[in-house]
């Protein structure tokens, strides 16, 4: 399902806020395996709360380091481009989202 609205241009403040929140989330979720617990942490919820402007930042982060960003991406975009045979494979799930983001024009190739 494509995005219906292109995210607004990213401000430096949004990038810095995302960087701070994602670093905080990675530290707080370091030892967690339950995806719901990870997603309910405050910094992760704050990133979801950033809405569409966070999507390109999450996708760039996925390119840099595959991680459990899929919950946030689904929550914000209501899309799920992961094919069934890639489910659970973190690197393949990340690539599916990156490909989707490129098709949407949200991130560069």
């Amino acid at each position, binding site marked *: 399902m494509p995005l219906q609205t292109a995210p607004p241009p990213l401000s430096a403040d949004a990038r810095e806020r995302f960087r701070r929140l994602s670093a905080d989330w990675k530290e707080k*979720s370091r030892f*967690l395996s339950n995806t719901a*617990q990870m997603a309910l942490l405050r910094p992760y919820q704050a990133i979801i709360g950033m809405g569409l402007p966070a999507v390109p930042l999450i996708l760039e982060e996925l390119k840099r380091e595959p991680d459990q960003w899929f919950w946030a991406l689904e929550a914000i975009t209501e899309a799920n481009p992961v094919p069934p045979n890639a489910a*659970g494979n973190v690197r393949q799930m990340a690539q599916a989202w990156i490909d989707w983001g490129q098709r949407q024009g949200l991130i560069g190739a």
Partner: protein
Amino acid sequence: MNASSDFPRLTPLNHRETSPSTSDYNCVAWAAGDEAHWWQPGVYWPADSPRDDFGIGILERAFAELGYIDCQTDDSMETSVEKVALYGTGAFYTHAARQLQSGKWTSKLGRDVDIEHDTPDVVAGGVYGEVVQILKRARD
């Protein structure tokens, strides 16, 4: 790794790191012998599971699907038997650990390292809460 509020019972003498950190798989996958997936209900799970069920019951059903049966909280070593320990805190399952043939246990700590530890209790008492259940099946 040192004892902290996350692992108050962990000491240098009761565990050792056995592999580097990775986000490719999580503790549930590791306990099930899978290093290729991050197990999550409704996404990648061995039993039918709704995407919004993250309680200890869904974790128990996953291992039941793999042939494990309940053995209460008996974490003793039994020849030809493989055991897994399930952990929970509040509404969530938090962790799973697997017993090795040596009698020691192995855990993947979130996206962090794998460790070998003396007993299931060693990684309890902090971020994982307590051991809720031990399951067992015949070892291959």
